[in-house]
């Protein structure tokens, strides 16, 4: 059974860790205003480029390979997600459970082989 009392510390930890990190970000901003180091200027606040104004919108770059990597990642992540319950329940499912998973892994191995053959895993 699920022991919810074990999860409450995680929630409290989340609040404390978040608070701590927020303090680390916002406290120096306050301190800088008090000590007078806070002194922004137009040049200081412009984005980094080697000493000249940026040519183009940085976000306009687009590469379809990142999609492919992300989609392949989703598929293999799902495969791993199916493997998690399988790994701890093999004593209950026995050989039929094992063979089922081998068929499943074979299906995905075919997919991996296809991706490999097509050069989708290539990164030039």
């Amino acid at each position, binding site marked *: 059974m699920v*022991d919810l*009392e*074990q*999860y*409450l*510390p*995680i929630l*409290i*930890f*989340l609040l*404390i*860790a*978040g608070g*701590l*990190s927020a303090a*680390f*970000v*916002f406290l*120096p*901003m306050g*301190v*800088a205003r008090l*000590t007078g*180091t*806070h*002194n*922004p200027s*137009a040049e*200081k*606040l*412009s*984005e*980094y*480029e080697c000493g000249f104004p*940026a040519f183009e919108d*940085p*976000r306009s*770059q687009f590469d379809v390979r*990142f999609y492919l*990597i*992300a989609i392949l*990642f989703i598929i*293999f*992540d799902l495969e*791993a997600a199916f*493997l*998690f319950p399988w*790994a*701890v329940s*093999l*004593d209950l499912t*026995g050989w039929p459970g*094992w063979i089922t*998973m*081998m068929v499943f*892994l074979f299906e995905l191995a075919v997919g*991996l082989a296809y991706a*490999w053959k097509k050069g989708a*895993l290539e*990164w030039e």
Partner: protein
Amino acid sequence: MTAFFESLGMTYGWAWFVATVAGILLIALPLMLAVAMIIYVDRKIWAAMALRKGPNVVGPFGLLQSFADGLKVFLQETIVPSAANKGLFLIAPIITFTVALMAWAVIPFNSGAVLADINVGLLYILAISSLGVYGVVISGWASNSKYPFFSAMRAAAQMISYEVSIGFVLICVVLWAGSFNLNAIIEAQRGHGLGIVNGFFFNLLLFPMWVVFLISSLAETARAPFDLTEAESELVAGYQTEYSSMSFALFWLGEYANVLLMCALNAILFFGGWLPPLDWAPLYIIPGWLWLFAKIFFFFFVFSWVKATVPRFRYDQLMRLGWKVFLPLSLIFVVLISGYLMATGHFA
């Protein structure tokens, strides 16, 4: 710890709450201290391997160097670029650091000494570490600047590529241990090798998986030789280029906290965590957390050693290693290990 606070006359609820908060602070604050010291250690090791002295001015042997650096960045001005998405720009380091701390909630420091002893501890760590991508991607996008954005995209693709094989390696360990609870995984390693060695590494089928895990943990934390996100010759300083002051330092701290976490995972999953290296009674006199810390430190030394000696990978080599070597290898080992365990009647 709850019992101690109850003995001070608190009701159970309050005693539990105070004990939990104390436990959290007992993890978070020493962790930050450890990160500060480990940065110093990293620089010292790196310097020693390059026949340099490393930090040696602030304090005895330069021990206080990290604290001096911390004070310096704390007093600096926080620059928020005018082109940035301000809210997200400031939230990104918060996410990075919070996530880096959160994963430690389920790490067992000794038999029973764990903040949240959940059934799915290993999945929790996998879930939390998969969130690390967001701090990086959001910072790169919110900076609205060319180099941070490229670096963030590269970092994200790199992290998710290696997460795949890490997932399969974890399955190999879980197959053998039969549980996702980290304490149960450690207990399963007691006397695993020849009845005397505590640790899964002493196992012909799991040893290659440990090698895959070690290299993947280098890639997952973007340490050298996989530190392409900070390839200074092409990407300035990576996704933190636009950051300054403490928000910059938070990325730094989060990165090192993640490195320590990966060292801890190496120790827990393959080297018996808080168990002594050998299942021999006199070694149990030394408390378990000391063994764990010694193992974490050992793995950190290995990380530094690799950083000092191995040249940086190229991006196509990195992708090739993740997708064409580690992924098929770990898949094959899932099949091999589960088949071996079925055939030998491990689950009967």
